[in-house]
């Protein structure tokens, strides 16, 4: 059925008909993520999948479909900056996992676009919780590079990826050091050598081998070395983060993004002045390793106070199953000292900006693509949930395999055999 929908949509596009609905969402607290701030009671007008107006009073054209938020909240869709949605269906079953490739000869060249499954069942469960956009980050395998990531949306479309080869992931933490041969020094030497290979690509490979990377991997790293796409570096220890800052300064125009960042707050000033963004899980507060002894619930507020660009992750939850918990993680940042607006921005507009799409996603403003979520309460409260999720201007289905199971087993008194129920 999903295939059919895709075909119909493609057919509609060919005939020039508008696929996206025109919609007005009214009567809610509007979180804009712009200078407009929060509008206590307002709405959003969507035409052809694009937001055309946002305000306390919007002109609703006759005949247009209206969604009444009923005093709830109207926000941009949640953007989960680090996930493995669509890469893994059942964690322990390697036959269902496409997140890493330890036995491959390749690393940077691996492209998650080829692994991503838009029919994975956790796209729907994420969408139901208000996640509309996400980045797919591959895990490391052959060496400390995981490969090239992509950006997707959760509508369930077979064409869910809206940006591919969007960034490269590398692990420079203790586990990356282990992969590189056993020490941090080995990891950074490998990274330096890999950059050298990419800079010298293709010339170096016409007559010989790279120092660190094979030809395909070096080719795939060129966009990173030239600063066209970000390099996401997983590091936790404060000294490793300083090393990454230095690496960025020595390798202009590379764009570094720190992921993990357990001790980033310790070097917050340097991060702020270097402009390097950090992707952290605000709920991470255990000294889970000797790299992360400084983990604390205060981290998000301290980074915020220092002016560091911060987006939130669900690093401590499962990356393929529970990115949907991102609003809870942001809510806990608020509980521990971050302002509500800042925390909400860290799961919407800021991640979009980090991935270079902040002019299209993450805010409710004219010209932005219409990812709009209507909630029955404060979206950062654990008891709230979306009542409507609009992606690219289309209302989406808020059911999943999980809700189907729920409904099948909801009534223990019904005598219909379970397998004959819906």
């Amino acid at each position, binding site marked *: 059925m999903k295939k059919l929908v895709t075909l119909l949509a493609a057919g509609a596009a060919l005939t020039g008909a508008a696929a996206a609905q025109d919609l007005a969402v009214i009567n809610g607290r509007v979180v804009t993520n712009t200078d407009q701030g929060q509008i206590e009671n307002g709405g959003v007008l969507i035409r052809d999948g694009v937001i055309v107006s946002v305000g306390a009073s919007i002109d609703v054209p006759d005949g247009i479909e209206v969604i009444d938020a009923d005093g709830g909240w109207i926000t941009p869709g949640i953007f989960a900056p680090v996930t493995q949605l669509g890469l893994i269906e059942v964690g322990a079953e390697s036959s269902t996992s496409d997140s890493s490739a330890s036995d491959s000869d390749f690393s940077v060249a691996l492209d998650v676009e080829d692994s991503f499954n838009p029919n994975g069942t*956790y796209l729907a469960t994420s969408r139901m919780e208000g996640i509309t956009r996400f980045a797919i980050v591959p895990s490391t395998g052959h060496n400390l590079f995981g490969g090239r990531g992509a950006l997707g949306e959760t509508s369930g479309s077979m064409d869910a990826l809206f940006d591919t080869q969007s960034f490269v992931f590398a692990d420079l933490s203790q586990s990356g050091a282990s992969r590189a041969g056993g020490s941090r020094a080995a990891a950074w030497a490998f990274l330096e050598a890999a950059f050298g290979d990419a800079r010298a690509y293709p010339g170096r490979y016409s007559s010989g081998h790279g120092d660190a990377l094979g030809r395909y991997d070096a080719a795939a790293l060129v966009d990173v070395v030239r600063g066209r796409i970000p390099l996401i570096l997983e590091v936790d220890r404060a000294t490793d983060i300083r090393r990454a800052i230095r690496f960025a300064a020595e390798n202009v125009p590379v764009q570094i993004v720190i992921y993990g960042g357990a001790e980033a707050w310790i070097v917050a000033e340097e991060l702020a002045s270097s402009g390097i963004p950090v992707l952290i899980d605000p709920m991470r507060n255990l000294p889970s390793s000797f790299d992360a002894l400084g*983990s604390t619930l205060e981290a998000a507020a301290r980074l915020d106070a220092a002016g560091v660009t911060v987006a939130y992750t669900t690093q401590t939850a499962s990356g393929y*199953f529970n990115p*949907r918990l991102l609003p809870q993680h942001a809510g*806990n940042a608020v509980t521990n000292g971050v302002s509500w607006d800042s925390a909400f921005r860290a799961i919407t507009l800021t991640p979009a900006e980090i991935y270079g799409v902040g002019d299209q996603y993450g805010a409710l403003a004219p010209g932005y693509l219409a990812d709009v979520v209507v909630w029955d309460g404060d979206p950062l409260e*654990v008891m709230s949930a979306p009542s409507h999720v609009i992606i690219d201007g289309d209302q989406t289905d808020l059911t999943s395999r999980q809700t189907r199971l729920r409904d099948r*087993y909801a009534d223990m008194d019904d005598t219909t055999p379970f397998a004959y129920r819906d």
Partner: protein
Amino acid sequence: MSLDWKRWTALLAAGLLAACSNGQDSDTDSVASDDGDDADLVRFDLDPYPSTYTPQPSDTTLITGATIFDGVGNEIENGDILIENGRISAIGQGLEAPEGANVVNAAGRFITPGVIDIHSHLGNYPSPSVDAHSDGNELTQPNTAEVWTEHSVWPQDPGFARALAGGVTTLQILPGSGNLFGGRGVILRNVAARTVQEMKFPGAPYTLKMACGENPARVYGGRGSSPATDMGNMAGYRAAWIRARDYRDSWHDHWDDPDNNSAPTRDLELDTLMGVLDGDILVQMHCYRADQMAQVIDMSQEFGYQVSAFHHGVEAYKIPDLLAEADICAAVWADWGGFKMEAYDTIRENLALIHANGACAMIHSDNALNIQRLNQEVAKALSDGRRMGLDISDADAVSWFTSNPARALGIADETGSLETGKRADIVIWSAHPFSTYAHADTVFIDGAVMFDRASGVQPISDFDIGQIGEGDD
């Protein structure tokens, strides 16, 4: 099922073996009368690693003006609680402060019983998770009923203090789930201490961790040994119960008639299983799938023991009728799943559906982060349940992290609810505990303030001291 921890304590205090058959309380006296009369009677100490827990000094304290959830289904607006000698001496409205009492104004705030986590690996899989700290699972043979996880618990795990900041006052530490019989669990007060003995809940029963399904089959099947399948798992449990039954009969024969029946040779593994058959050790069974739980229920009836709780119970919502009928609780997550096939059918309404269909339900963490926010986990499950139309009060849902785990741990006479005479294990929350924005402001254990956010009262483990993160929450 005999969950009478007081009887257990009494027997321990008398230095006697709990020889009561089938969990009935009739034999206590006759065993006692045997004591000293018969020189050939072989006994052994059931409590060789006794609790040395001593509550911290506490003041007579009146907490006033809060919204109180008592843990057993009641909500009291503008309520007061009086703590005397570490116990709750009164609860209600308009209580009078005794002379000299410390008065805590909790107006606008919320009170619940101390949070109880029935499934934790704090101390046996502690932070930091380095090689030396993997102390939770003796994966050397499928039946390790002989190990006691208290012998693995590292009291300096920094996770205990983080859990306290989330309101946790009592927790069960369990062995891992790679074995059919993982060994004994231990129930702890969440108090910073030098030794596990100083944390052990006085008089709490011992528990036995068992595990269904993929984990044991994967661990041992992967080594080319049994069990390699679900049916191998069942055969492994049943063979062990048969041996345990013989062992128990031999001991009981000996105690009943030592002149004609010599004592069997002590066997640590069978000691634990005998404790289950005698109703003194509570089975905590890791099981995900509905059909697996149904097999275990039949097995428990085959051998005459009671399962106290199924842990994880991802498919418990499919069989609430079977659970209610067998009087077995389910300890579950709010929204974890997908990590293996037997966790594939997870739904967010599991906890609420189990409860609504009349079975005993509770949250559990199995995780050093989730244990810090079990109130939020319950809130998620409650809101999802309500959204599908289940009518469950806030006060009832509070039982999911308080009295229901106390019941499944056999300590409900002592903690898990705010009732006169109970231990004063109390959390004052800054806001409704089902709000993301609620902090545990103050945590009392046995009436003593063990954590207080405003004044900075908090434990700092030896591991944390002198480290970068010292004192941070």
